[in-house]
């Protein structure tokens, strides 16, 4: 295997990692507020198609990126309306969002299949650092969305851990009555979290259609939304661990299409004979393993999962 191929693998790892990290970060915000949103896959598809179409229209990748975020927030708002305001079952609403979002994206994008926007995100060679061998290419010559996502990760961590708003969001995810009687609006906190989460997922979708696989075809999200949902659990609902998990999951995603070209032996197995499909289930296997570890390690203290996750809240119920 050549050096270039190996560097290519790690460059792709960072990009796939960014894709699932951005989407998972949005899901983490929603889940920390107590709302499970299984609609990430659908929100990403809507973001991918709407971002691509705005990109075609305006020629500006940034306009496309933020339009995709806005569409994601709107679609997330639908989930908030159904499950937070009206108190419907979050699992049902989220699954409906995935199925409906995928279908709607296919419909909206039916006339732009195969087109290419004039301007896409370009790699941002950071002066001085991009020329470092290996490291430079992998970390300092990436599209701007990668760096924006890192900043968003830091921002989410800071807001959750160090601000009044973050304290209220965390409390809403642990105990809605407590948060309500402390004087915060649970409905506003949760709806807001779900919409911000939707914006992140939508933006992630546009990163896919405007950079990683420029263009729009039905089914292009290809399960990455579900990987993002799994990643939140794998990261034990903590932004820092989420970032580490994103690199690991990103690595498996980057490795999948390249597996066949690896002419090496690992533990007596020729790597290029392993099925890429098998590699595709690795994130989910790892997630289940982490779930088991969590429930064992936390048997005598509260689990890291938000205690009120999935539970609707109505004030005057007795």
């Amino acid at each position, binding site marked *: 295997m050549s050096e270039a191929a190996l560097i290519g693998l790690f460059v792709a790892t960072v990009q796939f990692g960014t894709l699932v990290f951005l989407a998972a970060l949005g899901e983490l915000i929603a889940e920390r507020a107590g709302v499970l949103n299984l609609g990430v896959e659908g929100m990403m598809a809507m973001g991918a198609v709407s971002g691509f179409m705005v990109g075609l229209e305006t020629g500006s990748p940034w306009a496309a990126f933020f339009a995709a975020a806005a569409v994601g927030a709107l679609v997330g708002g639908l989930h908030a309306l159904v499950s937070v305001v009206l108190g419907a079952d979050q699992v049902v609403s989220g699954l409906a969002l995935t199925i409906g979002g995928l279908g709607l994206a296919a419909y909206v994008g039916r006339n732009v299949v195969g087109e290419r926007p004039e301007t896409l995100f370009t790699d941002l060679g950071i002066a001085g650092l991009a020329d470092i061998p290996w490291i430079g290419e992998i970390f300092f010559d990436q599209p701007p969305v990668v760096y924006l996502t890192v900043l968003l990760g830091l921002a989410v961590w800071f807001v959750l851990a160090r601000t009044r708003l973050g*304290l*209220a969001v965390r409390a809403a995810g642990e105990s809605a009555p407590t948060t309500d009687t402390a004087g915060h*609006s649970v409905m506003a906190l949760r709806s807001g979290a779900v919409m911000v989460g939707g914006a992140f997922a939508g933006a992630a979708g546009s990163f896919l259609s405007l950079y990683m696989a420029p263009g729009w075809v039905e089914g292009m999200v290809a399960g990455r939304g579900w990987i993002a949902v799994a990643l939140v659990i794998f990261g034990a609902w903590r932004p820092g661990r989420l970032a580490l998990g994103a690199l690991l999951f990103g690595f498996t995603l980057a490795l999948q299409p390249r597996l066949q070209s690896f002419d090496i032996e690992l533990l007596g197995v020729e790597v290029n004979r392993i099925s890429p499909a098998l590699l595709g289930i690795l994130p989910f296997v790892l997630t289940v393993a982490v779930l088991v570890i969590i429930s064992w390690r936390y048997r005598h203290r509260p689990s890291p999962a938000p205690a009120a996750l999935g539970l609707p809240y109505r004030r005057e119920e007795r």
Partner: protein
Amino acid sequence: MASSDADHAVWLRGIEKRFPGVIACAGADLRVRPGTIHALLGENGAGKTTMVNVLAGVYRPDGGEVWVNGERRFFQSPADAIAAGVGMVYQEFRLVPTLTVAENIVLGSAPRLLRSAEIEERVAELSAAYGMAADPTRPVWQLSMGERQRVEILKALWRNASVLVMDEPTAVLTPGEAAELGAALRAMADDGRSIIYISHKLDQVVAFCDEATVLRQGKTVATVDDLQDVDLTSLAEMMVGSTEGGYVERPPAMEAGPEVLSLQGVSALNDRGLPALTDINMTVHSHEIVGIVGVSGNGQKELAEVINGLRRPTQGQVKVKQQDVTDASPGDRYLLGLAYVPEDRLGVGLAPKMSVVDNSIVRSYRLQRRGLMLVMAKCVEFCQGLVERFGVRTGRLNDPIAGLSGGNLQRLLLGRELAEQPAVLVAAQPTRGLDVQGVAAIQSHLVAQRAEGVGVLLISEDLDELLALSDRLLVMYEGRVVSELAPDVTPRSVIGEAMAGQVRA
């Protein structure tokens, strides 16, 4: 009105509140003077909790007026009530277990940016000022119930509440903690704050409070301006509306039959992995009621769970009717003749969203089936039988059981457990939170079961109940049985000392 509105810290006037199928408040009044501790009394379902929830902005009243510190208020949310100076300490604490003491206290009124060290320091100052020790850096799930309550009070003080509402504050406290609470509340009242104190424990009400309002069936039936002028009996009469309401007659002594339940050298851990039971030895015989006395949290819950197979002992043996059941499942123990009325009725004992019928057959469904199928007619008939025999007041049998009142839930649960003539009945807090009629009904069933030969293990926090019903008393302290006492000859002071761990040689 002799006095002006401004004389009242709180004035709830003609409050009405309806829930589906229930009228919780039907024009109730409550007036509290500044700087006093005001008791709000009444039986379960009298409307006490609804009244204070209206004051706290949790419920919006269907009728009536809310005045706080001389101003008419229209609370849309708890935030409005907090802003008006109302602080509420709920019976089920409103704390986030995973957050620290300091984070819980500042939740809802935190500065925009949290600087943990600074907040923790300010919380420590506040807790020192009121003599309520609480380590601000500890997560709440590690705290005892008494400590959690202090955090709740500090939360109200942090927001500078002028009115503090305490709903059943001493239910979870040891006698020592309760006395400390009384002193802390007095200090706050002397500070000019008003305290509304909801409790069933009349002796504490008389000891802690200045004035009282009594509710019955959603209406104010009496007000007492000075609690020093009244005695306990007349307060109790005001609550229930008649003088009856004591405990069931002490059953005549019976000769105990064969041993039906025994524990030999049983030890077990609690949910946190710490020792909860240490070397427990006890036996229960047919025709006797054995009472477990102790301040809550001394291993009673774990004891009931170990006996019923919900918790695995680390050592020792459990026997039902002389047979070793230490490794048997709860279901097998039931089939052998062990019945269980758990402390948590609507969670462990009954499934809230399942119907009355379904809940009544979950133990004995073997009897109502043909082949693999349940025969619905038999199920309904069985349920109907329980409802009639145990006097359960219920709506439609196919409605969710959560709609029943506490007393009726307990009647059905007890009926279900007794349906197959068990040899042993473990009853944990069977009368807690029930109204007078419910208490009497449950107690007379326990006594009747004893007469029929059942061995009853009665775990209760109500000393009067234990003294009235038990043939023998076992005192639990820190996971051990520290002494065995005869209820009719032992002075209360001796029992009290044993409960506090001071056993006389």
